[in-house]
């Protein structure tokens, strides 16, 4: 593992992070040696299916793991300092003021009996020690920032549309001027046109405030629109990491390739349905070797027995035995 001192350029580093969930005495691994790093102002998409570990990774970074989760190895560093991600109380000063989260269901996250302006002002008062008057002024600024007229602040959550509520959630996430915003499927419950509006807003805020964005989604096409870099996760591991342009033009991992192929794309004009055979993996019973091997079209003998590690390949990283032979110098990907 490299020393943190030389990596000051990184805003966030995740080193070999593994998280287990304990469920009725059975422990199952949600993510396994996940490593990546993030620069200030960078937008990374974390893509995977259910059970891929994308949400666990993001929640670990925000220190919001559920009580039955345990960090079994690895750490998360913010500006070179190790974060106490498994200590809720110790994470409190960091959360929201450095890393904040925009959740999926805006209706559940907002208190239905308080006006939205009050709900946005609250974290400003608690975290930044503002007076009520200052906090209200800040809340009005934030509303304008996310494209809601400040006068609408007197509305209750149910009086707003889904898109507006999601904007309020974003305003709340920005209240304490964080440098990282994690979006946990922030547009999944929204309609196509509203989704485009929210993605556009996130992009604008990112360049305006130099925010780093971690976008968790199952939808590759959203990442293609909103991110610089994408990491594909499968069964708790990162299987491919690269720039958006590179991955969509030349996907390396067979899973990434199949995933891209399975998305209908009128732009290439080919009306062919290409299913990926098999089911997404189950966390408790994980296939041996490469977790994708039972579904992989280019499976080899070694895939069933050995877990491929994440190698540096070109600009990005990939975890697949196919590229192992071509890659003589096995550089640890994160170095």
């Amino acid at each position, binding site marked *: 593992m490299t020393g943190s001192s030389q990596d000051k350029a990184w805003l966030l580093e995740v080193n070999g992070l593994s998280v287990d969930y304990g469920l009725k005495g059975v422990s199952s691994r949600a993510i396994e040696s996940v490593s990546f790093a993030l620069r200030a102002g960078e937008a990374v998409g974390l893509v995977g*299916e*259910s059970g891929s570990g994308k949400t666990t990774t993001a929640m670990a970074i925000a220190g919001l793991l559920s009580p039955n989760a345990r960090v079994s190895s690895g750490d998360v560093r913010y500006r070179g300092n190790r974060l106490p991600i498994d200590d809720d109380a110790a994470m409190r000063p960091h959360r929201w003021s450095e890393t904040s989260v925009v959740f999926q269901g805006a209706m559940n996250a907002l208190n239905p009996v308080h006006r939205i302006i009050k709900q946005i002002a609250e974290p400003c008062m608690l975290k930044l020690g503002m007076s009520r008057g200052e906090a209200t002024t800040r809340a009005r600024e934030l509303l304008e920032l996310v494209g809601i007229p400040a006068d609408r602040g007197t509305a209750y959550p149910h009086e707003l*549309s*889904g*898109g*507006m509520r999601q904007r309020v959630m974003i305003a709340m996430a920005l209240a304490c001027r964080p440098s990282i915003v994690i979006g946990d499927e922030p547009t999944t419950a929204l*309609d*196509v*046109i*509203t*989704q*485009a*509006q929210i*993605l*556009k807003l996130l992009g604008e805020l990112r360049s305006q405030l130099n925010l780093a964005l971690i976008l968790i989604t*199952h*939808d*590759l*096409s*959203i990442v*293609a*629109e*909103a991110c610089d870099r994408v990491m594909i996760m499968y069964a708790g591991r990162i299987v491919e990491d690269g720039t958006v342009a590179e991955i*969509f033009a030349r996907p390396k991992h067979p899973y990434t390739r*199949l*995933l*891209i192929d*399975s*998305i*209908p*794309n*009128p*732009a*290439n004009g080919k*009306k062919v*349905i*290409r*299913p*990926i*055979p098999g*089911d*997404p993996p*189950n966390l408790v019973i994980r296939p041996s070797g490469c977790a994708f091997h039972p*579904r992989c079209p280019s499976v080899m003998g070694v895939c069933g027995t050995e877990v491929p590690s994440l190698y540096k390949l070109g600009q990005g990283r990939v975890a697949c035995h196919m590229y192992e032979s071509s890659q003589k110098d096995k550089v640890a990907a994160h170095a």
Partner: protein
Amino acid sequence: MPDTADVLCLESLHVHFPIQGRLFDRLRGRPAGAVRAVDGIDLNIGRGEIVALVGESGSGKTTVGRVITKLAQPTGGRMLFDGRDMTSVQGSSALRPYRHRVQMIFQDAYQALNPRHTVFDIVAEPLRSLRLVEDGKQLAERVGEALASAGLNPPGDFFARFPHELSGGQRQRVVIAGALAVRPELIVADEPVSMLDVSIRAQILQVLVDLRAKHNMALLFITHDLPLAWLIADRIAVLYLGKLVEIGSADEVTFNPRHPYTVALRNATPQIGGNVGRAELPALQGEVPSAARVPKGCRFHPRCPVAFDRCREEEPPPVEVGSGHTAACWLAT
């Protein structure tokens, strides 16, 4: 390809849900208005044709599906199935012949399966209720056959399972098997893949497309996803606030949209490798208004980037803009 006769024909279909007014209004007998969920739709589906109904939430697309499957009653217009007027037929025994021919697939397979029934009972239910089998042996055969067509092999392994013991994809296959078991002529599929994992979606789509190839089954595919509609459908109908704004072949609607709303939908859909002809129009502002307060004139005009005076006053009729391609926009004329 569609035969000469259409299997289903909707003529000026309306579904208005009355709004319960306040007590004071009700006492004075004042009508409190209505939610115009479906507000005059003409749509026909040919035999073995796949039609996609595309719209956002609140567009009324689910209500159309519920009317066709007789879960909701229209308040106006007619519904013809195989030339017969089915608009006012009601009651489970009177509907039995219709149920035999029209089935439905649901968005949330977990919700659609009774947690206390086994897979066998679930798939057998329509066969038993509609009295399509004579004995237990025939029933088991038909259930096995349906499960196999839905891609659950070997079927026998699934008979005794409960829904919670299946994966998401398998549950949706069970729902499909239940619809298939009666060998219907039309299946209404309401967002059948939107809750599934990306890698499973294509599997389910493949099952649906194969059905058409094998049994010449027609499909009404309800979705919010334009590229998905393009992939699976022969024709696409775009719904906005209870009315069809554009209808045409999948390629025409996708590559040559004539209604500003369709253009906006296409532009808003995130795409890998960029959009075809993106940025013809500025992005839409705001959201779909409530169906209880439908704007005057063209119902899209408050959000339309190219609206002009006439749009605010008069509702545009559907106009033929190409072969089998119509759009309801004053600019399309």
